[in-house]
């Protein structure tokens, strides 16, 4: 993208030279050019959203108009209810909420426990098992896709929600790794004190590790939420009956059936974004903090 082509230092000439020579004016040029680049970048990143929004309010004719118009003549707010009811999107929404909810809870429980083990509990095989776990992050989903599908079809779980949330209850390497990095930064003395007071491992985890690592837990929760909410391939493979579909899957179905009605697609697209936007806005600060403190970026 073009916005990065100019290095910040040469973006704009200085208008007024202050008394202290180079230091001050250089700082000013940098500040001004930083704003220019940020605003230009914001434009590039935001325009697709605005486009999505205006398209969702156009008539079918306006979407196909040539040359294209940026804004609709009269905003077609009726696109939203029309699109939403053209397929059972309320059912899809409920399905998405159930599957995502069960997955997020599962991810949290099943990643916190192994993370504690890898961070604090000593066993002879720990290093080897940890290395193995990190290695699994490199396995492409496609490799495990076919055997996993076969396993679930043998269990008669195809076209149920089980294959969509059950794996989340058995740990996820990236999350365990992230949480473990965070747990390791909690001083040993604190847990020693707790164990002298007679706290078991579960107790220590619950009343010391979890409260002290809220940002990391929040990060995992959001990564898990976004990942499961947007998951497309797994529902596509396992769900057969339309009534079981998720929002992400329903959206694509919409595309196939109404090839030209971009306006309605965009309307449903925007609705399906709302839950994610709400979650992200609520937790943005904790989330960024969580990644930073967990030492993922630091080393």
């Amino acid at each position, binding site marked *: 993208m073009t916005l990065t082509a100019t290095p910040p230092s040469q973006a704009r000439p200085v208008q007024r030279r202050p008394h202290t020579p180079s230091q001050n004016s250089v700082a000013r040029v940098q500040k001004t050019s930083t704003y220019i680049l940020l605003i230009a970048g914001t434009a590039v990143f935001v325009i697709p959203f605005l486009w999505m929004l205006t398209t969702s309010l156009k008539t079918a004719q306006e979407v196909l108009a040539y040359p294209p118009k940026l804004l609709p003549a009269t905003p077609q707010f009726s696109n939203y209810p029309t699109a939403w009811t053209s397929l059972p999107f309320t059912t899809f929404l409920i399905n998405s909420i159930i599957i995502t909810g069960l997955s997020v809870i599962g991810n949290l*429980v099943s990643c916190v*426990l192994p993370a504690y*083990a890898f961070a604090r509990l000593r*066993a002879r095989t720990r290093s080897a098992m940890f290395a193995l776990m990190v290695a699994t992050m490199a396995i492409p989903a496609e*490799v495990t896709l*076919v055997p996993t599908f076969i396993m679930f079809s043998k269990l008669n779980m195809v076209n149920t929600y089980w294959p969509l949330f059950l794996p989340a209850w058995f*740990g*996820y*390497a990236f999350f365990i790794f992230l949480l473990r990095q965070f747990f390791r930064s909690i001083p040993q003395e604190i847990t020693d004190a707790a164990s002298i007071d007679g706290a078991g491992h579960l107790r220590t985890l619950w009343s010391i590790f979890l409260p002290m690592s809220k940002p990391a837990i929040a990060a995992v929760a959001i990564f898990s939420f976004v990942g499961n909410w947007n998951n497309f391939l797994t529902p596509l493979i396992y769900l057969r009956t339309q009534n079981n579909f998720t929002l992400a899957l329903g959206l694509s179905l919409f595309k196939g059936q109404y090839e030209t009605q971009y306006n309605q697609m965009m309307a449903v697209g925007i609705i399906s974004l709302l839950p994610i936007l709400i979650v992200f806005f609520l937790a943005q600060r904790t989330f960024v903090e969580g990644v930073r403190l967990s030492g993922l*970026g630091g080393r």
Partner: protein
Amino acid sequence: MAQVAPALETGTQGTQGTRRRTSKLARREARAFYGFASPWIIGFILFGGGPVVAALLLSFAHWSLLSTPSWAGFANYHKMFADPLFYKSIVNTIYFGAGSVCLGVVTSFLLAILLNQKVRGLGFFRTVFYLPSVVAGVATAILWVNILQPDSGLINSFLRFFGIKGPGWLVDEHWAIPGLILMSVWGAGNTIVIYLAGLQSISPTLYEAARIDGAGWWSRFWHVTVPMMSPVIFFNVVTSLIASLQAYTLVLVMTEGGPNNATLMLGLYIYRQAFEYFDMGYAAALSWAMFALIGVATALQFVLARRWVHYDA
């Protein structure tokens, strides 16, 4: 991953001298370890290592899901090496992977530096740049199909404003993958967040020292920021390469591999063989080819990393 290795050994202090005395305690602790780790251990057997081994066995079989599997020897691999679509999908995968990683890693690094300046409304700017990566998947794909429309699309309308005739992005064989690369950069927010985390952990004293030595903007960037960030850059290159080599959702929704298989990538081809043609054995063989491709690419990254990644702070 390289970051892991040094971290493995620490934290196991004091077991040596007191081994005999604490052996009972140690055994109890080991039992607790296996108990706590059991979700992952079971998960690894059911959803990780188990399926990987099963995929290897399956790649030596013929199976259409309906019939019982029959031994095929190397037939699937022979078929693979004679399949022009296999080679085409490999080339497309590498083209897309290399293109999106190069463009994405550089762009998001520069954006992260911008977002690390002290400016007003930083939270707003950070949210804006992070948003697209949250909107991942189908919604993004449908949106970008619209933006990349040859006539009515946003980009070509913009170019027409300057009198430039834009290419037929997703419909022209030569412009289909560049179109996909362009859209992948838009969703680079995760990379930006990780870069930001890295930038925040660089000690300000290093910049102070460089400033005292008379280093200008460029030289501070080149001699402080880039070396200090090299482990993070490396992390992002490795993980985003792994992710983009596995890309399937966007091609499946946006182009379905077309036009004329110009965007057929390995992930999509595996999906098609397994769940459209029900050739499970061949799909398993292809998935092992993909594993090998990612393995080689990742190993290559680690070899090259010795030349430019600095771990000592």
